[in-house]
Protein backbone atom coordinates (compact mmCIF):
# COMPACT_ATOMS: atom_id res chain seq x y z
CA UNK A 1 0.00 0.00 0.00
CA UNK A 2 1.03 3.59 -0.44
CA UNK A 3 1.14 5.98 2.49
CA UNK A 4 1.76 9.69 2.47
CA UNK A 5 4.07 10.74 5.31
CA UNK A 6 4.52 14.28 6.66
CA UNK A 7 7.54 15.05 8.84
CA UNK A 8 7.92 17.91 11.31
CA UNK A 9 10.71 19.43 13.38
CA UNK A 10 13.57 17.01 14.15
CA UNK A 11 11.86 14.14 12.30
CA UNK A 12 11.89 16.36 9.21
CA UNK A 13 15.62 16.98 9.74
CA UNK A 14 16.30 13.25 10.23
CA UNK A 15 14.28 12.18 7.18
CA UNK A 16 15.79 14.97 5.09
CA UNK A 17 12.35 15.77 3.70
CA UNK A 18 9.01 17.26 4.79
CA UNK A 19 6.91 14.62 3.07
CA UNK A 20 7.16 11.45 1.01
CA UNK A 21 5.02 8.70 -0.49
CA UNK A 22 6.05 5.32 0.89
CA UNK A 23 5.14 1.90 -0.49
CA UNK A 24 4.95 -0.46 2.48
CA UNK A 25 3.50 -3.74 3.66
CA UNK A 26 3.02 -2.32 7.18
CA UNK A 27 -0.62 -2.80 8.15
CA UNK A 28 -0.76 -0.57 11.20
CA UNK A 29 0.82 2.61 12.49
CA UNK A 30 3.26 0.85 14.80
CA UNK A 31 4.69 -1.33 12.06
CA UNK A 32 5.01 1.64 9.73
CA UNK A 33 6.92 3.67 12.32
CA UNK A 34 9.26 0.79 12.97
CA UNK A 35 10.04 0.54 9.26
CA UNK A 36 10.56 4.30 8.84
CA UNK A 37 12.58 4.67 12.03
CA UNK A 38 15.02 2.14 10.67
CA UNK A 39 15.14 3.72 7.22
CA UNK A 40 15.60 7.34 8.41
CA UNK A 41 17.35 6.74 11.72
CA UNK A 42 14.55 8.13 13.90
CA UNK A 43 15.60 7.78 17.53
CA UNK A 44 12.31 8.58 19.30
CA UNK A 45 10.76 5.63 21.11
CA UNK A 46 7.10 5.34 20.01
CA UNK A 47 5.89 6.27 23.51
CA UNK A 48 7.39 9.75 23.07
CA UNK A 49 5.49 10.33 19.83
CA UNK A 50 1.85 10.84 19.02
CA UNK A 51 0.41 9.77 15.71
CA UNK A 52 -2.18 11.26 13.39
CA UNK A 53 -3.88 9.64 10.42
CA UNK A 54 -5.71 11.77 7.88
CA UNK A 55 -5.53 14.83 10.10
CA UNK A 56 -6.81 13.31 13.36
CA UNK A 57 -4.97 11.90 16.38
CA UNK A 58 -5.18 8.14 16.64
CA UNK A 59 -3.42 5.27 18.41
CA UNK A 60 -0.54 2.99 17.49
CA UNK A 61 -2.81 0.03 16.68
CA UNK A 62 -4.72 2.00 14.05
CA UNK A 63 -4.99 -0.13 10.87
CA UNK A 64 -3.91 1.72 7.76
CA UNK A 65 -5.66 1.99 4.42
CA UNK A 66 -4.14 2.70 1.03
CA UNK A 67 -3.27 6.40 0.52
CA UNK A 68 -3.63 7.29 4.21
CA UNK A 69 -1.77 10.41 5.33
CA UNK A 70 0.30 9.47 8.38
CA UNK A 71 2.14 11.85 10.70
CA UNK A 72 4.39 10.94 13.64
CA UNK A 73 4.42 13.91 16.00
CA UNK A 74 7.48 14.52 18.14
CA UNK A 75 6.97 16.19 21.55
CA UNK A 76 5.54 19.63 20.93
CA UNK A 77 7.15 22.90 22.04
CA UNK A 78 4.77 25.68 21.10
CA UNK A 79 4.06 28.68 23.27
Amino acid at each position, binding site marked *: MNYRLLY*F*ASLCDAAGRAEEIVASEAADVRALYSELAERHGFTFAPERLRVAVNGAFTDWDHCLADNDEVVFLPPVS*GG
Partner: protein
Amino acid sequence: MNTKASTAKFWISEAPIDIAHLQRELEAAGVGAVVCFEGRVRDHNEGRPVDSLTYQAYGELAEAEGQRILEEARARFAIERVVCLHRVGELAVGEVAVWAGVSAGHRAAAFDACRYVIDEVKARVPIWKREHYRQGASEWLHPDSAGPK
Protein backbone atom coordinates in the same frame (compact mmCIF):
# COMPACT_ATOMS: atom_id res chain seq x y z
CA MET B 1 -24.87 31.85 12.63
CA ASN B 2 -22.70 29.39 14.51
CA THR B 3 -22.59 30.78 18.06
CA LYS B 4 -19.70 28.58 19.10
CA ALA B 5 -17.55 29.70 16.19
CA SER B 6 -18.08 33.32 17.19
CA THR B 7 -17.18 32.91 20.86
CA ALA B 8 -14.15 30.58 20.72
CA LYS B 9 -11.55 31.17 18.02
CA PHE B 10 -8.13 29.64 17.56
CA TRP B 11 -5.77 30.66 14.78
CA ILE B 12 -2.31 29.83 13.49
CA SER B 13 -0.79 32.88 11.82
CA GLU B 14 2.34 33.80 9.94
CA ALA B 15 1.64 37.51 10.46
CA PRO B 16 2.47 39.38 13.69
CA ILE B 17 -0.27 39.23 16.31
CA ASP B 18 -2.74 42.13 16.17
CA ILE B 19 -3.62 42.31 19.85
CA ALA B 20 -6.16 45.11 19.51
CA HIS B 21 -8.08 42.98 17.03
CA LEU B 22 -8.03 39.97 19.32
CA GLN B 23 -9.20 42.06 22.26
CA ARG B 24 -12.22 43.22 20.27
CA GLU B 25 -13.19 39.56 19.84
CA LEU B 26 -13.60 39.37 23.63
CA GLU B 27 -16.35 42.00 23.84
CA ALA B 28 -19.75 40.76 24.98
CA ALA B 29 -22.59 41.91 27.20
CA GLY B 30 -22.11 40.95 30.85
CA VAL B 31 -18.31 40.97 30.77
CA GLY B 32 -16.84 41.99 34.12
CA ALA B 33 -13.38 40.45 33.81
CA VAL B 34 -10.87 40.01 31.01
CA VAL B 35 -7.64 38.05 31.41
CA CYS B 36 -5.00 38.02 28.69
CA PHE B 37 -1.80 36.04 28.33
CA GLU B 38 1.11 36.98 26.08
CA GLY B 39 3.96 34.53 25.50
CA ARG B 40 7.05 36.20 24.09
CA VAL B 41 10.34 35.04 22.64
CA ARG B 42 12.89 35.22 25.47
CA ASP B 43 16.48 36.23 24.95
CA HIS B 44 17.75 33.06 26.58
CA ASN B 45 16.67 29.50 27.35
CA GLU B 46 18.33 27.30 29.94
CA GLY B 47 21.31 29.62 30.01
CA ARG B 48 21.90 29.83 26.24
CA PRO B 49 21.47 33.23 24.56
CA VAL B 50 18.73 33.03 21.91
CA ASP B 51 18.63 35.29 18.82
CA SER B 52 15.41 34.11 17.20
CA LEU B 53 12.98 31.23 16.95
CA THR B 54 11.29 29.36 14.16
CA TYR B 55 7.86 27.90 14.91
CA GLN B 56 6.55 25.15 12.69
CA ALA B 57 2.98 23.81 12.89
CA TYR B 58 1.14 20.84 11.49
CA GLY B 59 -1.40 23.45 10.47
CA GLU B 60 -4.56 21.47 9.87
CA LEU B 61 -4.32 19.44 13.05
CA ALA B 62 -2.99 22.38 15.10
CA GLU B 63 -6.06 24.48 14.31
CA ALA B 64 -8.43 21.61 15.05
CA GLU B 65 -6.72 20.77 18.35
CA GLY B 66 -6.53 24.45 19.35
CA GLN B 67 -10.22 24.90 18.63
CA ARG B 68 -10.97 21.78 20.68
CA ILE B 69 -9.09 23.25 23.66
CA LEU B 70 -11.10 26.49 23.46
CA GLU B 71 -14.36 24.54 23.36
CA GLU B 72 -13.22 22.58 26.41
CA ALA B 73 -12.54 25.87 28.19
CA ARG B 74 -16.04 27.09 27.33
CA ALA B 75 -17.55 23.89 28.68
CA ARG B 76 -15.53 23.90 31.91
CA PHE B 77 -15.60 27.55 32.93
CA ALA B 78 -18.32 30.23 33.08
CA ILE B 79 -16.82 32.42 30.37
CA GLU B 80 -18.15 34.60 27.56
CA ARG B 81 -15.46 34.58 24.87
CA VAL B 82 -12.10 32.94 24.38
CA VAL B 83 -9.56 33.47 21.63
CA CYS B 84 -6.03 32.24 21.03
CA LEU B 85 -3.53 32.86 18.28
CA HIS B 86 -0.16 31.18 17.77
CA ARG B 87 2.51 32.49 15.40
CA VAL B 88 4.47 30.33 13.01
CA GLY B 89 7.62 31.17 11.03
CA GLU B 90 10.64 33.17 12.12
CA LEU B 91 10.29 35.32 15.28
CA ALA B 92 12.77 37.72 16.85
CA VAL B 93 13.44 38.13 20.57
CA GLY B 94 10.59 40.06 22.22
CA GLU B 95 7.94 39.16 19.62
CA VAL B 96 4.65 37.73 20.84
CA ALA B 97 4.55 34.02 19.92
CA VAL B 98 1.19 33.19 21.46
CA TRP B 99 -1.69 35.27 22.77
CA ALA B 100 -4.75 34.02 24.66
CA GLY B 101 -7.62 36.10 26.00
CA VAL B 102 -10.76 35.26 27.95
CA SER B 103 -13.74 37.38 28.96
CA ALA B 104 -16.17 36.37 31.70
CA GLY B 105 -18.65 37.70 34.20
CA HIS B 106 -16.24 37.18 37.10
CA ARG B 107 -12.49 36.96 37.42
CA ALA B 108 -12.00 33.42 38.76
CA ALA B 109 -13.42 31.86 35.59
CA ALA B 110 -11.43 34.23 33.38
CA PHE B 111 -8.12 33.41 35.13
CA ASP B 112 -8.78 29.67 35.25
CA ALA B 113 -9.87 29.46 31.61
CA CYS B 114 -6.93 31.53 30.33
CA ARG B 115 -4.50 29.36 32.27
CA TYR B 116 -6.20 26.20 31.02
CA VAL B 117 -5.98 27.34 27.41
CA ILE B 118 -2.30 28.21 27.44
CA ASP B 119 -1.32 25.09 29.41
CA GLU B 120 -3.22 22.83 27.05
CA VAL B 121 -2.02 24.63 23.91
CA LYS B 122 1.59 24.17 25.00
CA ALA B 123 1.02 20.51 25.85
CA ARG B 124 -1.15 19.39 22.96
CA VAL B 125 -1.12 21.58 19.87
CA PRO B 126 1.32 20.27 17.22
CA ILE B 127 3.68 23.24 17.04
CA TRP B 128 7.45 23.01 17.36
CA LYS B 129 10.02 25.59 18.26
CA ARG B 130 13.53 25.75 16.81
CA GLU B 131 15.86 27.99 18.78
CA HIS B 132 18.62 29.85 16.95
CA TYR B 133 21.46 30.51 19.37
CA ARG B 134 23.76 33.49 19.36
CA GLN B 135 26.65 31.06 18.86
CA GLY B 136 25.19 30.05 15.48
CA ALA B 137 23.76 26.63 16.27
CA SER B 138 20.06 25.88 16.24
CA GLU B 139 17.97 23.13 17.72
CA TRP B 140 14.40 21.77 17.67
CA LEU B 141 12.94 21.58 21.16
CA HIS B 142 11.21 18.33 22.09
CA PRO B 143 10.69 18.56 25.83
CA ASP B 144 9.67 15.53 27.89
CA SER B 145 6.89 17.66 29.35
CA ALA B 146 5.64 21.03 28.16
CA GLY B 147 8.58 22.67 29.95
CA PRO B 148 8.58 25.33 32.65
CA LYS B 149 5.28 26.93 33.26
